[in-house]
């Protein structure tokens, strides 16, 4: 009877999953190389890299391993984690003018603050350190701007993002003591750090309390005349979440403030306030029932929680599969997590495994694939605003910047959300389908980048050339170098050899534009067309 009772209480087994690998058609090696290069480096593969994989498919793995050691992986992880951590917002309670910064520093200020916790995680990941260090580290990663406004020890002679240490006595607990995280996830006297606790649950153990289906239908009558604070600690409907939220919120009072907009309050840790939470919330600091002594202890409890490694696996799978993980993924996630933990929670190994997965390598679905799989799997990814920016910068030297604002990285004056990006507050997941605004941003970016490349390579004829390698303004379509240039551009930008039809179409376009505006305009138009080609804009 006991066995039967246990079986009856056991979680329902997930439905048998359709073998994903059999339902998906993998990308060809060249497009897969392009996907890996974009996801792990943020730039297109070089012509030489494409040549190498075209000649020998085994080179794909060799190059992927190189990408995993590429310093640009750090920036890519920051961008990918930002999609889920939502810290890169456009305005905090504390603003640039609270410090000795000018208006042109506004975006740099906001970006620096929002990236601080992301940079710490990216550092841990790319330096092959155990992922648990994101909640146990006695350091953060900061740049010169943060050095100047926060209590940090920053290396003498350092530049850019560097390992730095807090000097205000805050406990060693990685992102749990990050100013960037808590400036993003603020709180108020009614909320009492509950938002922050919910953020920790969602980000570190993938327990999204606010997303839980809670029915108040049976409790509505009982709310009349009852203090809601009492309700949180007595009503089973509330306790389902608040029994865990309150003790965690209580542990975060070292970041409590008395003036929400005061840099003097918000910049430093306040150890003397650590105990205020117990009175404010009626709960002692704890992690799911286990008492914790300070944030250092909390970090270790989180790292030792089995959901932490699973959540890391899900987070990176979501980032690379470009979709949420679902119940049907559980077996795959379990296997990936098992290897992740067995390998000491090193992120490069997890990225390696994820880029081997069928979900990552999918370029289409088979005719026999179910509708569910067809709807779920993202077989063609659109360039995110970050990727659009990094690719065009790498190819042409053009960056869309206005008064210090990266126009593809903000929504105050820029186009991040319009380009399917995440602002972290109103849009919290990247759009995966082409939208009108995305195509408009793509078109403007392509035109400006093309113009910049032609001005540099052909009009000013500056060396070294950036993109156009073989032609000048006097080269004609009948010249061999003209057709070679078109073929090379097609190869580099789309990772596909140009067909006769492709070359003919580009030549026709060039000829029409040249007749109207000259050779520079013609090359600008051809390049702009390639830079907004569907095969360029997807990967």
């Amino acid at each position, binding site marked *: 009877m006991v066995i039967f009772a246990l079986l009856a209480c056991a979680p329902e087994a997930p439905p048998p999953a359709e073998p994903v690998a059999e339902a998906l058609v993998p990308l060809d090696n060249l497009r897969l190389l392009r996907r890996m290069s974009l996801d792990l480096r943020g730039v297109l593969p070089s012509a030489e890299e494409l040549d190498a994989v075209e000649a020998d498919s085994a080179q794909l793995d060799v190059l992927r391993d190189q990408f995993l050691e590429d310093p640009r992986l750090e920036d890519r992880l920051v961008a990918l984690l930002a999609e889920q951590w939502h810290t890169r917002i456009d305005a905090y309670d504390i*603003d640039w*003018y*609270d*410090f*000795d910064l000018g208006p042109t520093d506004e975006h740099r200020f906001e970006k620096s603050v929002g990236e601080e916790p992301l940079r710490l995680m990216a550092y841990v990941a790319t*330096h092959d*350190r*155990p992922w*648990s*260090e994101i909640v*146990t580290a006695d*350091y953060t990663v900061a740049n010169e701007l943060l*050095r*100047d*406004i*926060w*209590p*940090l*020890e*920053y*290396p*003498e*002679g*350092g530049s850019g993002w*560097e*390992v*730095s*240490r807090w*000097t*205000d*006595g805050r406990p060693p607990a990685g992102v749990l003591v990050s100013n960037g995280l808590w400036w993003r996830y603020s709180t108020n006297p009614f909320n009492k750090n509950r938002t922050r606790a919910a953020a920790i649950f969602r980000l570190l153990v993938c327990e999204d309390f606010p997303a839980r289906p809670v029915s108040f239908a049976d409790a509505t009558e009982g709310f009349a005349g009852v203090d809601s604070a009492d309700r949180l600690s007595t009503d089973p409907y509330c306790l389902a979440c608040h029994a865990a939220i309150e003790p965690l919120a209580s542990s975060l009072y070292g970041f409590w403030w*008395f*003036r929400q*907009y*005061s*840099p*003097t*309050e*918000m*910049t*430093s840790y*306040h*150890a*003397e*306030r*650590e*105990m*205020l939470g117990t009175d404010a919330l009626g709960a002692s600091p704890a992690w799911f029932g286990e*008492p914790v*002594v*300070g*944030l*250092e*202890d909390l970090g*270790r*409890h989180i*790292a*030792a929680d089995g959901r932490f490694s699973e959540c890391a696996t899900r987070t990176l799978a979501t980032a690379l599969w470009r979709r949420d993980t679902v119940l049907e993924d559980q077996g795959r996630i379990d296997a990936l997590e098992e290897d992740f933990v067995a390998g*000491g*929670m090193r992120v490069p190994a997890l990225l390696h495994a994820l880029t081997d997965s069928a979900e990552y390598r999918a370029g289409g679905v088979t005719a026999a694939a179910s509708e569910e799989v067809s709807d779920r799997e993202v077989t063609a990814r659109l360039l995110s605003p970050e990727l659009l920016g990094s690719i065009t910068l790498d190819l042409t030297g053009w960056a869309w910047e206005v008064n210090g604002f990266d126009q593809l990285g903000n929504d105050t004056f820029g186009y991040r959300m319009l380009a399917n990006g995440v602002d972290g507050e109103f849009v919290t997941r990247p759009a995966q389908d082409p939208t009108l605004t995305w195509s408009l941003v793509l078109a403007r970016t392509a035109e400006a980048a093309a113009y910049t490349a032609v001005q540099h390579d052909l009009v000013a004829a500056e060396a070294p050339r950036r993109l156009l390698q073989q032609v000048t303004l006097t080269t004609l379509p009948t010249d061999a170098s003209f057709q070679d240039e078109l073929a090379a551009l097609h190869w580099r930008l789309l990772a596909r050899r140009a067909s006769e039809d492709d070359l003919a179409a580009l030549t026709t376009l060039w000829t029409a534009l040249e007749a109207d505006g000259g050779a520079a305009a013609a090359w600008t138009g051809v390049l702009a067309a390639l830079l907004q080609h569907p095969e360029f804009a997807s990967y």
Partner: protein
Amino acid sequence: MCVSRMRLGAAVLALALAGSACEDGGAPDTALPASDADADDLGDFAAAPEWSAEEMTAAAQAMLELGFPNPKAPYDAYMSLLSFRDEVCPGEGDQLVGQEMAQGGCTASTGAHYEGNTTLLVTDESGGDVERRSFSLGGDFLIEDPEGYRLAGGGGMSYGISRAGSGQVDWFGESAGTWIHDRRDDWLGLGISSTVTFGGSAGGDNAVLTLDGSLGLDGVYVQFVDLTWRDGCDAYPQGSVRMRDPSGLWSTLDLADRCDGCGAWSIDGLGEPTEACLDLRPYGSAIAELGTW
């Protein structure tokens, strides 16, 4: 200086609260050792106290000797610094108000710089049966005098007193948030982070002083829990004082009903209590003195 180009209240306070982290002038050690840490041992973590009872109370005593966080000190400094104003900056009245003040502030012709927003409420009621006086200074602001000294505040400082014709005097006060005035060399000069409330009654049958709340000063963090000074206890309070060990553990000194500043001290949840002492009489004197304003 290991933190360069820091400015405004946050920077000043950050340096003040940073203690001696950079005092040796050397480059900070930010190099990380290679990590072979494993998550397997994370669950075994147990914080261990770094200080003994003697070290803990000595640190707390040294902190107490820096002075009581009397809200009148930042209030007086604030009012004094307003004397550097001109016709335009920081505007009319004794409050710093408006978007312009919040976003960059202004510099008066005297060279004084005003920035941020404040609210100041002052009452002075006399002539009736009861005389009442109070002030409340709150805000998020920075004032730099012509010599470059700065008063910065984020939080609230308040104080009030009432005197009845019967001779009964009652007073109260609060110090909340972070404050610093780097012209001084006491608690306010070092920079304080606190949420402290205090009060007193005198002149009647039941003279009493009270103190509650948390205080962070010079790298030492304490919490006063229901401290009460009553007549007949040699100026020692009853109640308890909690103190934070550098490890992050908190300890409690339970003064109970003793009248000698001593009591049972223990790290929360660890070990057996031991005897420890803390002389809180200077704080009692400071609170009592506030009943004479």
